[in-house]
């Protein structure tokens, strides 16, 4: 059964560096994925997303003319997005907090830091299958829930607008400014 899953699973690799793109393709093929599609920037990736309907996307952050952040924003929020829920793993050599936060805030599902290690790549792919994240839609965000942990015993302090223990579903009612 597992081999069959690998057979039908489709991945889209978006990376402007041809060497890194080839490396990622080789790694995914080595894992057993047969359908790996490639693009060198966000604009062509968006078209490929519509054509190929991949199950997950591996994208670089820095690309021209459309980078990984803008690509993710389009996938999550464009009215013609073919799949706003597709898991997006962002690969980045950027360790600067600002860039990582910007990527998180447009709806990236997982991050994979360069240099890529086999272990980290496998773990990120396993994560999107094993623990698919709930999505959140509010005034200024649509994407995977950015909170990774929910501790039932957590006693506060409560900093977020939707941090009310009794009922998370009605939580966004207040905006703290």
């Amino acid at each position, binding site marked *: *059964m*597992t081999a069959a*899953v*690998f057979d039908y*699973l489709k991945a889209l690799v978006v990376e402007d*560096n041809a*060497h*890194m793109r*080839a*490396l990622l393709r*080789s*790694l995914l*093929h*080595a*894992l*057993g994925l047969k359908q790996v599609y490639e693009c060198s920037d966000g604009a062509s990736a968006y078209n490929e997303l519509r054509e190929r309907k991949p*199950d*997950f996307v591996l994208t670089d952050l*820095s690309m021209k003319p459309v980078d990984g952040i803008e690509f993710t924003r389009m996938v999550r929020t464009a009215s013609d997005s073919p*799949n706003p*829920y597709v*898991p997006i793993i962002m690969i980045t*050599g950027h*360790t*600067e907090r600002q860039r990582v936060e910007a990527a998180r805030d447009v709806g990236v599902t997982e991050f994979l830091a*360069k*240099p*890529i*290690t*086999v*272990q980290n*790549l*496998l*773990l990120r*792919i*396993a994560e*999107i*299958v*094993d623990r*698919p*994240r*709930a*999505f*959140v*839609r*509010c*005034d200024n965000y649509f994407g995977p*829930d950015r909170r990774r942990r929910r501790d039932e015993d957590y006693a506060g302090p409560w900093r977020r*607008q*939707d941090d009310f223990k009794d009922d*998370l*579903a*009605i*939580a*966004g*009612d*207040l*905006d*703290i*400014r």
Partner: protein
Amino acid sequence: MFQRRKKVEFIDAKSYPSVVRGGDAAQFVSALKSEDASRRAARAILARTSQLRDAVLDYVSALERAARAGDDAAAFGEAHEIRGLAETVGLVAAGRIANGLCSYLDALAERGQSADRTVIMLHVDAIARSARAEDEATRLGGKVAVELAALVAHKLGDSLDTAAR
């Protein structure tokens, strides 16, 4: 301080199309986390190592040209490619030193300050020596990476002091 706003909508993962479901998902994850998967992926990297090391050396040459020309933006671009690829193919020190150079150039660019040529050239020289000599086994490159990181921290501290004055 508190303002009314629209509710936040939570969309459970079960209610949108996911990658793999149910028993298939468990088997898939188990297969991904298996030693066999790690071995196959490691072999895939190994098969490309020679080609990728050559690519890193090309980036190193381009970095040297950019640094000599005083083109910091181009130097950042080449160093960024090196930090992305080098460690994956075993050129650990070269990758770390390139990362240090990127952090240095990035920090100064954000502050609108110009970079110290000596700091750049020390990094470029260390990256080139480390990548070409393949001295990873001696760990010399690692020590150089640590020393240069200390130099960058010192220089960035100086530049903050200058900016504060």
